[in-house]
């Protein structure tokens, strides 16, 4: 199965937020939505974290060859 992309997950999260803001959802559903929303947040964060990690990894490899430390100030 194709992994959900970051953008798709973000879109779903935003959809959940909008639905919940409408306030018409029964608790049960609201709880469900909320739970799903939290999952999406976590998923997105995960993707962002791993992307960041990847960048750091790439940059670290490069740093050696470039000498300087472009990302030190982060």
């Amino acid at each position, binding site marked *: 199965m194709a992994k959900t992309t970051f953008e798709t997950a*973000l879109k779903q999260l935003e959809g959940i937020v909008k639905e919940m*803001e409408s306030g018409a959802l029964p*608790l049960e559903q609201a709880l469900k939505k909320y739970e799903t929303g939290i999952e999406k947040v976590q998923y997105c964060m995960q993707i962002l974290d791993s992307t960041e990690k990847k960048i750091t990894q790439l940059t670290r490899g490069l740093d050696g060859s470039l000498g300087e430390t472009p990302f030190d100030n982060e």
Partner: protein
Amino acid sequence: MTEPKSSHIYTVSHLTREIKTILEDRFSFVWITGEISNYAAPASGHSYFSLKDANAVVNCVMFKNQKRSLKFALENGLNIFGLARLTLYEPRGNYQLIFEHVEPEGAGALQKAFEQLKKKLGDEGLFDAVHKQVLPYLPDKISVITSGTGAAVRDIIHIAQRRFPNCCLQIVPVAVQGDPALNEIVCAIEAVNQQRSSDVIILARGGGALEDLAAFNSEIVARAIFASNIPVVTGIGHETDSTIADFAADVRAPTPSAAAELVLPEKKQLVRLITDLHFSLSTAITQKLAYFHQKVDDLHSRLKSPVQVVATAKQTVETHFLRMQHALDRQIFHGTEKLSWISQTLLGAAPQLQPRTRQVADLYNHLAITMKTCIFENKHQVRQAATTLTALDPTAVLKRGYSIARTLPDKKVILDADAVAVQDRVEIILSKGRIQTRVEKKIHGKDNI
């Protein structure tokens, strides 16, 4: 070369001297007769005159010393006969007679007879010059025909030995006056001729009156003298005396002593002459050698070895070598300089890496920043959504004391008491924590409170 020819060219002096030598050798003493002319007697006391006959004339001189014995005066037109030496006076090229003794022609009876015999024998040719024999230059042995005693023989011996110490004399003693004299003299001449051991005969006698000289004026003595194969030299009487024998003799000397002198050369002189010639000879060859030595030495010293030429040439070669080396060195130096300059330029033009590195670094920075921004923005979006979501958290009412009850294990929210039975397990979700409990009692109704 011109030398061979020049040896045939006489100088005047040379020629004159040669003629003088020939004349004086050939006519050392002559008896001559003639007439005096051009007589002159200057203050010196000498007499100068000419003697002439029909066809010829000859210059004559008689010096003061010889004139002293003259018994008469010399004058023009006077016929004389006398003994003279023939000489050549070089400064003028003249030959002349120097008179030793002069007599006027014709005097007395004896004189007449003398003249007649003299004429007779003269006509026969006994006195002719062609018959005169030449005296040996250096006689080996001399026969002296004279009185064994007396001054003549002593004088002759004395003079001969003085002139030539190792001379060989043979004395032939004869009577020189009186009747035996004639025969003895003739015999002596013949004996000497017969013996043939002498080169020359001296017939001598001391001075005396004309009568005492009779033997020497005799015809047979004259003929014997003429017949002699050995040259005869007479030395009879004094200088003024002249006899037939004198005329017949090959050479006449005025006195016995003179005869000895005439016959014998002086040995000392000969030795000196030869020594001089030897010296001249040695000098000539030595000079010649010295001259040639000098000439060879001179040429040798001028024969310069080409050492200087070699030295100069060496220098030239070395100079060429240096110039060549300098030229090549200069070329190498210029090449090195040019190469060095170009090399520096090349090094300067080496590819520049810094700008390129900076460019890459810049791009990398851009890339990094862009990526960072992207992540930042996305994070922001997610966080915003999360905040909004959190605000909508359905469990927020629990903080105000509400709680949610759910069935277990179905976890269904219990909205209606009817939804559960007593003893059913129920979960109560509180603001903080959860409680699991059992239903003890159910109160039905529409209203909960």
